[in-house]
């Protein structure tokens, strides 16, 4: 029996880099598996169960007068139907992505300047980043991107957002914020507030929501620097009345984030999920790096590309409700490429471009390219296609917006009633 070796590691780290790589790989795989399973389960249980509970919880701040707008009731009915747990949880794959995408208010693209911009609209510079829903409840905070996947799971200073809070953290306490996560400074920029501390703001006007957002967010401590119980900083964005100086400030003002265009919110509009003309996005090269759409490789294709949905009768339509017809697809292509109703297809717009009669699309010169990236949940909206078309041909310029404000000042005031399209 030989003596036993007692050599110990000398001047060596305890773990080899290869072992570290293996472990990090396993960690990533486990995380991906969890994400895949959760997506399959549609485990937005925080959003799901909270929403179903929301109607019962009475607003605590009853001293605040809420501006309700006709149509609100119908709107919230539709909303709770959308959130039917039974339906949502049966979803798989792309359906999940669609469901989540439907929970966010999606601005249309500004293809002409709305009236009364200065009186009825807010403007702010949109942060570049990942649009997501941030939900705090039961001592934790989860952010989910438009496709439903979890971006972060973290403690935050939002009400019910971390384990340390007491009292206020009752079962009803939760928040839902509409945010853009800005990678560079690791900050959640809150662009809208949907629920705060158990109190639903869906049926409140943008005016009220922004007022509430600005006062409450700061109060909660969520804007403080990150700490152990508050992993990411939150920040409100500066919102301006869309008069000449406001528009100018939003357009040229210095903000701590990279801009990606300007967002215009109608002051009287409720938080409406899905596409809405009461929120608009506009951009040019000065306030966004991404004006013209790029392809999967990050390059600008020579021809504009659009994604349209194939319908039963070979019709190609946008994601709008009601859909806008762009043309019909050749039966041969359908046959040859094995396409089905509901497929999202990618087209280039040929030299024939888009032609309009009386402001309505009459004809589009479409060239079939193939199926779209499967991560896509929707076809393009009409306004998006048009905005991109205009950007390539005759863009709507900042001067046009400013001019519209000025001319409105000169004119007599038009009646102040706004028709809710809701």
């Amino acid at each position, binding site marked *: *029996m030989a003596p036993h070796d007692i050599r110990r590691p000398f001047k060596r780290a305890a773990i080899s880099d290869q072992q570290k*790589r293996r472990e990090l*790989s396993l960690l990533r795989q486990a995380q991906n*598996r969890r994400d895949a*399973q959760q997506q*399959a389960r549609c485990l937005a249980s925080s959003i799901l169960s909270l929403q179903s509970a929301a109607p019962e919880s009475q607003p605590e701040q009853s001293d605040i007068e809420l501006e309700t707008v006709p149509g609100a009731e119908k709107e919230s009915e539709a909303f709770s139907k959308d959130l039917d747990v039974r339906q949502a949880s049966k979803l798989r794959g792309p359906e999940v992505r669609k469901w989540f995408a439907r929970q966010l208010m999606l601005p249309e693209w500004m293809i002409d300047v709305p009236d009364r911009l200065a009186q009825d609209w807010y403007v702010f510079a949109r942060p570049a980043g990942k649009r997501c829903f941030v939900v705090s409840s039961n001592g934790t905070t989860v952010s989910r991107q438009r496709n439903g996947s979890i971006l972060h799971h973290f403690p935050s200073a939002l009400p019910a957002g971390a384990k340390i809070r007491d009292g206020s953290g009752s079962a009803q306490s939760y928040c839902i914020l509409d945010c853009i996560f800005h990678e560079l400074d690791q900050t959640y920029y809150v662009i809208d507030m949907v629920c705060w501390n158990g109190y639903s703001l869906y049926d409140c006007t943008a005016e009220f929501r922004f007022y509430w957002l600005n006062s409450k967010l700061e109060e909660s401590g969520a804007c403080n620097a990150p700490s152990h119980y508050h992993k990411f900083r939150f920040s409100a964005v500066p919102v301006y009345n869309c008069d000449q100086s406001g528009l100018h400030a939003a357009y040229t003002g210095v903000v701590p984030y990279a801009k990606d265009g300007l967002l215009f919110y109608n002051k009287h509009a409720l938080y409406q999920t899905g596409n809405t003309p009461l929120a608009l996005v506009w951009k040019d090269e000065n306030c966004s790096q991404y004006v013209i759409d790029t392809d999967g490789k990050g390059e600008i294709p020579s021809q504009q590309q659009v994604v349209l949905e194939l319908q039963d009768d070979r019709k190609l339509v946008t994601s709008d409700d009601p859909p806008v017809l762009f043309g019909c697809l050749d039966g041969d292509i359908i046959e040859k490429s094995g396409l089905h109703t509901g497929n999202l297809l990618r087209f280039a717009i040929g030299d024939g471009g888009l032609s309009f009669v009386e402001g309505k699309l009459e004809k589009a010169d479409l060239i079939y390219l193939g199926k779209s990236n499967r991560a896509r949940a929707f076809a393009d909206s009409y306004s998006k296609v048009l905005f991109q078309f205009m950007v390539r041909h005759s863009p709507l310029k900042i001067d046009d917006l400013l001019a519209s404000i000025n001319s409105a000042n000169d004119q007599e005031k038009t009646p102040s009633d706004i028709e809710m399209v809701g």
Partner: protein
Amino acid sequence: MEVTQVLLNAQSIDGTVRKNAEESLKQFQEQNLPGFLLSLSGELANEEKPVETRKLAGLILKNALDAKEEHRKFELVQRWLSLDGNAKSQIKAGLLKTLSSPVSDARSTASQVIAKVAGIELPHKQWPELVGSLLSNVHQLPAHAKQATLETLGYLCEEVSPDVIDQDQVNKILTAVVQGMSASEGNTDVRLAATRALYNALGFAQANFSNDMERDYLMRVVCEATLSPEVRIRQAAFECLVSISSTYYEKLAPYIQDIFNITAKAVREDEEPVALQAIEFWSSICDEEIDILEEYGGDFTGDSDIPCFYFIKQAIPALVPMLLETLLKQEEDQDQDEGAWNIAMAGGTCLGLVARTVGDDIVPLVVPFIEENVTKPDWRQREAATYAFGSILEGPSPAKLIPLVNVALNFMLSALTKDPNSHVKDTTAWTLGRIFEFLHGSAVDSPIITQANCQQIVAVLLQSMKDTPNVAEKACGALYFLAQGYEEVGPSSPLTPFFQEIVQSLLTVTHREDARESRLRTAAYETLNEVVRCSTDETAPLVLQLVPVIIMELHNTVEGQKLSSDEREKQSELQGLLCGCLQVIIQKLGSSESTKYLFLQYADQIMGLFLSVFACRSATVHEEAMLAIGALAYATGPDFAKYMPEFYRYLEMGLQNFEEYQVCAVTVGVVGDICRALEEKVVPYCDGIMTQLLKNLSSNQLHRSVKPPIFSCFGDIALAVGEYFEKYLMWAMSALQSAAELSTHTTGDDELIEYINTLRNGILEAYSGIFQGFKNSPKTQLLIPYAPHILQFLDGIYMEKDMDDVVMKTAIGVLGDLADTLGSHAASLIQQSVSSKDFLNECLSSEDVMIKESAEWAKLAISRAISV
């Protein structure tokens, strides 16, 4: 058959003769196993035969009883057990007889073979008379036979586990061994054999160590043996003390003062092999106390099984000065010698362990030594002082250490470039690495690295990377921890201004002629990996620029040429480093959408290279390339489909690699990545993959650690392909079911329970994936027959009360998935299960967010299933 000549031939220098002999031995074995083994034991026992053939006969006999590979070992055991009893008796008689042979090699070989036979037979309650017959007349034996008998007992204790020998026999063994060790035994060889036998028998002496008188006696005999005039006996006796320190830590209090005196004398005066064991005793005590204190820290109730006696804390006033003395006994060039292990190294290592055990208390004991020696003209003193400083950096609180480091840092930086002695520079670079490892990073409140000194630190480290390989390697290590400290620094890293220069310097190091010495090249790539991992968005464009550089390097390694086996090994090692580096880059750039798109332009090229790396080998796949491909699949998503036709055969090869089970495990993980990337596009490959995975599960050659990930992988596949999984359902479910039955109940040590939990988690992940995959499909009803068993499994593991948090989370999720997919079909089954009530409630009130989230999901799904 006359084996003597064949055995002689088998050792011939003539290759052909040797080959023929081996062939005829093989034939003999195949044709008549009992005869073959019998003639080997006859050869071994025969005093007329030459010693070489006797030894070889014994060796072949031994190899016919045991093997390294588990499955082979199992076969050999079965073969022996089923052998004719008569032949076995004769063989065993021959072996026992050999123990009294005058030829020492024959005796020694026989004792090893006896232990192997005992290792097989005793657990089966066979050969019960063995211990008795070995010990029957041990006192009357001549010295050489006594020595062989004691040696046999030692091997026997090494071979069998304590529970197969009853206490009565243990007592007899220990009595014989201790008598053999005692001073009254005149023969040195007998004493040595007895001391070494005791080392192996200590594990059997649980009861004896609980008895004060017997323990006192055992300890006295061991301590006396440490004073033997024979160095090998002293060494063996200290080995016993080391073993006692970990096996019977809680019994040591009455002896610790004496042991300190003995070890201190040995460390200062004895020969190196003895001194090393004496130091090891204290290192081992540190290990024990670190474990106990860690358990205290993790558990607020503080009721650990073993109390901490704080031996080290009490010993440090004397122990630390003793260890500091050893630091001055360095050997020249020990840093260039990979295999070096000497008293200075052992002493320094022990000092580091002491620091981890006692924390702040060590600092005042070491600082005067550092101050006195660090500027001395003799390099030994400077090196010892620096090593002492580096050793105590882990353990004491940052508050205690940071003031010291702030004073020392500048001195260290200048020593690293200016000290004339390479040994001092090596230790200085290592110490800087320890400073950054333990005192730099977001967890430390007052930063030791500031804007003012950051540039200087980087400059010094980069310069030092041009030094001799061992110094450069330590400098790389220091840079590794410097980068790591900035891992969570936020959007802007202080290393950003130096990023380009750091990367360039590391790449230069990898190209040094002498980069293979002191594992310098490996260290440089590992540091590069960490620098990339910890980089921020600011430097993403620079990381992207690194991609074509590494691609080019990897390309150079696959250029077709004939390679010698040594060159092939070098090539493979370099490919591993480069694939590892690419993996880290892919994971980094793939984690953010913007950089991912830019990176993906290289995807085709990179994948092509990975395939070439695979092609460099014949039967195995490269683990690092496989890992990197997993990361690539995740980054490319569905586009990975285009690589599948070419990649598939390597995937299969990886799944078939049982010998290198890590490779197999990694490949299984990659299958999961591919499933998530391709979703239903993975269907064409599923037949092959599933066949191989099922084959792996049923094999007893595959390392058990690969089985849980295989089950998880079933889930990944099912989730990706949905109802298409129907084809495999029956097979997968049957494999899952039998594994589930095995893993419901656990009995065994912590390690086994941990494994069982991993296995459960894999099984549960499979069920989750299958249920979710089939959801909303018209084929859901195919799953209904399996529901009772799955619920039974959930109830079963719940009742066992030994699942960990991960299993809990997965298990409750499966309950939800089952309810969600089967709905009302399973309502009554679910209502009857314990899981849907007690288990669910327990999870709902869990502190763990993940468990709670899964439980809420399950609750929702169950209420829906029941209400419909």
